[in-house]
């Protein structure tokens, strides 16, 4: 996996999957698929906490649950752009971070997914965003510690 800071306020991650593009795209917008992989190691993302309305203005909400102590980590986002099966853009109103996922068919039933996040410093801007972010981070750090 490559990750790098493209510029001051951007982050990019890419990964190639051995699966056709339609399927990889569906994994990102179908709750019964997303539930299997969305939470990082040591967490679950239960099906009943996932809300996906994949169209501009529609919600994308998930709750990651810490397997060790049951604490919950909700993330609220709203879709900005949905182009099946090429592109998904969502933004998190609480932090201002916008995530663009691009799906490229590589021609041999493999798919490259590129995640590009912008407005990262926005997440540190207002005192409210900073407080929310700090809380999320603290809870998140707890997950990661339990997981490793």
């Amino acid at each position: 996996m490559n990750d790098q800071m493209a510029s001051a306020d951007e982050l990019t991650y890419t990964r190639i999957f051995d699966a056709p593009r339609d399927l990889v795209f569906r994994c990102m917008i179908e709750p019964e698929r997303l539930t299997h992989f969305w939470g990082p190691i040591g967490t679950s993302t239960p099906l009943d906490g996932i809300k996906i309305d994949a169209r501009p203005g529609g919600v994308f909400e998930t709750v990651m649950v810490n397997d060790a102590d049951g604490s919950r980590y909700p993330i609220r986002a709203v879709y900005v752009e949905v182009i099946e099966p090429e592109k998904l853009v969502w933004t998190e109103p609480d932090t201002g971070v916008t995530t663009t996922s691009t799906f490229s068919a590589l021609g041999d039933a493999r798919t490259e997914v590129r995640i590009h996040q912008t407005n990262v410093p926005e997440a540190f801007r207002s005192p409210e965003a900073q407080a929310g972010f700090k809380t999320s981070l603290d809870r998140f750090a707890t997950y990661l510690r339990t997981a490793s």
Partner: protein
Amino acid sequence: MTLVDDRLDATFAALADPTRRAIVARLATGDATVNELAEPFDISLPGISKHLKMLERCGLISRTRRAQFRPCHLEREVLDTAVDWIEANRRVWTERFDKLDVYLNHEGNRQ
């Protein structure tokens, strides 16, 4: 824009440059003078000074006014918030992708 906003933008801008990241990494091991910081790089002293000024402006480093060699000091708190988030975020996407890979490799999930 408040001073805090400016600083955060500047922090990310500062960390986007490989030379400045290397300087920050060096200072994480302890204070250092400009000459010490310049040593590993093929850059002139004025070049290094420019990088240091940028790091100083966003509050990532500070320099003692009175000491003769004005050693540079890393202000960890400014760095930590930004780095913590980037690291947590990177880890989430890595693990998410690892799990998606496993999911996609189960034949039953490929319809």
